[in-house]
Structure formats: C-alpha cells, structure tokens
C-alpha cells in the first residue's frame, strides 16, 4: 500500500515537473526573438554599428546638418520592400530641436528629425548598403496633404551626397526594373545647396544666437534612368529620372530663445549671504512722449511714407534690468513683459497671453535703480517668472508691462507710485505716468535716478 502511494506520488511529481518544464520551456521559447523582421532589423543594425557608426570619418564640413549630433531610433525601425528587396527604415533623431525650411514651401518649418530616415538594404549578394534619406515637402505636398511631391536628399552618415537631390512627383510613377542596369543617357549637372540659419546657445546672454551659412556645390554625372535595385531616390516609387533642379535653400532654426526658459535665464544669479554680495533692480521706462504723462502717442499723418491708415500708436514700455554684484563678478539680465501677439486699443483686443522678452536692446528715457536685499531680489525674480506661465495674460488696461513691474516690486516690499492714466478705450498704469512719477519722487538712500539711456547688455555666464 505504502509502495503504491509512493509510486503515485512519484508519478504526480513527474507530471508536475513535466508541466513546469513545459511552461518553462514555453516561456523561454517566447523570449527568443523568432520574428524574422526583428532579425532583419538586428542584422541591419549590426552592419551599421560595426561598419558605419564606429568609423571615425569626420562629417562633411560644408553640410551643417551632418555636424549635428544624431542617433538612430532602432526601437522604431520598420521593414519594407523596395525593388523586391527587404529594406530597413529607421528614424534619425537629431539632438535638440532642429528645424528646416526650404524655398519649396516658403514659411513652413519642419522638424528635421521627422524628415530624416536611415535606409538599409541588402543587394543581390546580400551586402548591405545604406543612406540617410531626407524628404522635404514642397508647397503642393502641403497644400494637398498628399505628400507626393518635394525633394529627396540622399546622403551618407557624414553628410556627403550619395546621389543628386531629386524632385519627384508621384503621379509620374516610374518604377524601374530592378534588373535594368543599363545607362541610357549620362548627364552632368551641378547642384548647389545653400543653407542659412542660426543656433541658440541658451545660456549665453551675449551671443546666444549664431548665424551661419554654408554653400555646397556638387557636380554629378548621372544616368537619366535609375540603374537598379540600389536603395535611394533612384529606386523609390514615384521618382523621376535625374534632372536639374533649382538651387535649394535650407534654413535651420530652433524654436525657442533663451528667455522662454526663465529659470535658465536667471540661473546665474546666486542667493548669497555675504555682505559683499549686492543686488539691484533697475526699472527702465520708455515714455511714449518723454517728459510728459502722455499715456500714448499717435504719429499723425502716419509713419513717414505711409498712408494715414497706418498711424502708429505708441504706448511705450517699462522693463527690468536685474543685477547681482558678487565682489566684482557682475551678472545682469534684462527682462520685460509683453503680449505674445499683437494687441489693439479696441475693446476685445486688448489682451493676449503674456510672454517675457529680453529687453537688452530696448531704449529708455528714465530709470530708477533700487538696491535690494537678497530676499527681495529673489522674490522679485520669482514674481517675474510668472510672466511666461500659460494663462498669465497681458492686458493693455489691467495687466500691462508697467503694472507687471509695479506689482513684481510691490509684492516684495518695494513700493512704486501707481498713477493710472486714462485713454479712449480704457485706463491703467502706463509708462508715461510711471516715468514722470520716478522723475518727481523723493529718492530713498538705496535709490538712484538716471535720465540718460545707456547700453544695458546682459552680462555674465555660468554653467
């Protein structure tokens, strides 16, 4: 009896082991990539990383895009078939925000990362070929939302052109025979790519924007028809044979400027307790009619050379120059509060989302400099920082640039006169009244007044 029980127990244990082993094996089986597509992508990746990515070849100095830091999004790679050959396509991610536009679609900027793909395909001898394909839509593509027309740039990882940029139109489909390697016509063309643009160095208050220009001319001797299964524009569906194209202008522009991130803009200021560390706030006022309380001026007769309908209405401006002096180490930042879009002195059009701008190029005719404590200074910075917040609106009557300055100081114990002017469509604080109040006020020992505008650049950088 006992022996029978042991035998049954052994059989049950064996069965359980088999079940466990089955699921264990099944689980293990699931973790092994059996997907042939994944295998193709992995093979392409191995080829690229071992032969191309690891090469120490410098980028083409004339190709600005090639010098940008970029990486391959293998996690988003896909497979497709071109000319009967399996082809792996992976997005190329450029560091930061890089935008391009061309004269094919004036005024529209495209995210370069969204336009560029790495394309890898084996040839008939199973040898991989690769290229970076950049598609720039033209105006027809954008207007019709069909994206069948535009220009294709085909380059290697270093930015050297692999084949001439091509204009194409899908309606003229000319899919080539993959076995056709006969060159019918050879033509020589020269293509010049002119690239103009600018980069931002967000933390460089003196030269945060760098303009640059590059012109690259290449001469191509090309067949009039595609020559076979090689990847690239020549074998992509819908591409015409090579033909001369107009010169291409590409602009690269980042979408932000330094002060769009106010925390970064202010980050060089340090909250120190040393008596040698001093802080000052300069309130700069650009009065519409200097020396008067006039809240706005209208250039009668219009701006010189214009019709009367264009009479410019000047409401002036008030802004801050903020300075920290740490034993001679000066940090200065200019900042002013504006509407993000144009506003008008008409009911219903006086308000817009607020935005902080760098005002180091703004003129003023009177200013008041106030020495403040570290606590006050950083409290003022915090108040100013609200100006970029979504929903923090600029209003010509109730929350304009002058109101912003008065409130930012007032909430931190620095009280300025708050005279309100009136105009046809409203009333509120205004540069004319604040400027004249500053001109007439009794100055405290921590204040100085200046009635001459001088250069007030941002000063100082930090890591």
């Amino acid at each position, binding site marked *: 009896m006992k022996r029978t029980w042991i035998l049954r127990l052994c059989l049950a244990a064996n069965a359980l082991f088999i079940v466990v082993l089955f699921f264990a094996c099944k689980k293990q089986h699931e973790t092994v990539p059996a997907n042939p597509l994944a295998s193709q992508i992995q093979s392409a990746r191995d080829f690229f990383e071992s032969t191309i990515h690891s090469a120490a070849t410098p980028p083409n100095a004339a190709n600005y895009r090639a010098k940008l830091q970029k990486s391959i999004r293998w996690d988003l790679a896909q497979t497709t078939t071109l000319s009967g050959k399996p082809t792996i396509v992976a997005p190329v991610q450029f560091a930061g925000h890089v935008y391009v536009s061309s004269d094919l679609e004036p005024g529209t900027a495209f995210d370069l990362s969204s336009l560029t793909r790495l394309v890898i395909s084996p040839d008939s001898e199973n040898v991989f070929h690769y290229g970076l394909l950049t598609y720039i839509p033209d105006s027809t593509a954008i207007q019709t939302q069909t994206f069948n027309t535009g220009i294709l740039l085909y380059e290697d990882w270093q930015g050297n052109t692999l084949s001439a940029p091509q204009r194409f139109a899908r309606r003229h489909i000319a899919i080539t025979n993959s076995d056709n390697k006969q060159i019918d016509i050879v033509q020589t063309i020269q293509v010049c790519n002119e690239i*103009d643009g600018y980069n931002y160095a967000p933390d460089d208050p003196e*030269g945060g924007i760098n*303009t640059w220009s590059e012109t690259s001319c290449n001469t191509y001797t090309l067949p009039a028809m595609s020559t076979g299964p090689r990847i690239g524009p020549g074998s992509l569906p819908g591409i015409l044979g090579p033909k001369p194209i107009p010169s291409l202008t590409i602009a690269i522009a980042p979408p932000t400027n330094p002060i769009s991130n106010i925390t970064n803009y202010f980050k060089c200021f340090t909250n120190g307790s040393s008596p040698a560390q001093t802080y000052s706030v300069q309130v700069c006022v650009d009065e519409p009619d200097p020396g008067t309380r006039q809240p706005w001026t209208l250039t009668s007769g219009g701006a010189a*050379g214009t019709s009367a309908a264009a009479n410019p209405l000047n409401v002036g401006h008030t802004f801050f120059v903020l300075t920290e002096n740490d034993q001679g180490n000066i940090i200065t930042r200019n900042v002013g509060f504006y509407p993000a879009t*144009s506003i008008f002195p008409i009911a219903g059009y006086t308000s817009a989302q607020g935005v902080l701008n760098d005002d180091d190029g703004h*003129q003023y005719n009177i200013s008041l400099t106030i020495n403040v404590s570290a606590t006050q200074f950083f409290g003022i910075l915090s108040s100013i920082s609200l100006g970029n917040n979504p929903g923090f609106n600029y209003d010509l009557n109730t929350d304009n640039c002058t109101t912003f300055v008065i409130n930012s100081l007032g909430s931190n114990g620095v009280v300025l006169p708050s005279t309100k002017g009136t105009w046809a469509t409203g009333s509120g604080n205004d540069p004319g009244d604040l400027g004249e109040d500053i001109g007439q006020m009794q100055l405290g020992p921590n204040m100085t007044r200046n009635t001459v505008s001088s250069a007030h650049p941002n000063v100082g950088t930090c890591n």
Partner: protein
Amino acid sequence: MFVLIVYLALHLTSDTAGTSVKWDDTKNWKIYALNNSAKVFTISVDSIKPLNGDPLNDDSVHIFLRSAKILHVPTSPAWMGCYLTSCENRNGQLMKIVISQYGGFFLNAYDGYYYQLDANLTRPWLDYMRRAYIKTE
C-alpha cells in the same frame, strides 16, 4: 516608402503666405542704431539713405518673411518699441520697414501695410532682430 513619407509629413500644416510684396526679391537689408519710436516713425526714406546701417543677411530675412501675411487691422497695433530697418525692392527702391519689438508684426512704410509673421517664427525673429540691433550700438 511613400506611406512612410506621408506618415513623416502628416503633422505638417499648410500655411502659404499671401503678401503683396515678394520678400524674396528684396535685398540690401539694413538695421539702424535708432529705436526711439517717435524718431523711427517720423524719419523719411530720404533721411534714411545717408544713415550708416548694419547689413542684415538677406537670406536670413527672407526665410523669416516668407511667412509674412498682411495684417488686416482696424487700427494701429499698440507699439511698445521698434527697430528701424530698410531694404530695396526689386526695382531698387528703398523701403522703410519698422519692426515691432513684440508680437512678430512690422510696418512696411512703402505700401502702408502691417505684416504678421507666423507665430512659430516670432521668437526667433525677435531674437534675431534684437541681436542685430545690439551690434549697431
């Protein structure tokens, strides 16, 4: 591949410019060391000619202005600071262009129209002009 290309470009929006000026035809852009609004608005084109302006890169300006549309306004926008610039049109005539220090709009004194840039170009445009102006000081 075209499916891919379509996918790549689907997020893009159409925004063709409708302007009375072919900005790509303009040249010899300059910015002047003058941003007193009253003086900028009243200075005549003839008075601009003898001024020494700093050249702006024509191509860079073209890139920004390709998106410019005429701003149909009931009255003048509120100006809060401006830059004085000039350029020549395709006929070589000098045009006075007054650029706002906010909002991405400007006044072409030659045709009397206000123009507005695309919102996504306003920040870079203002930064570009500000830095160009500072170099004139």
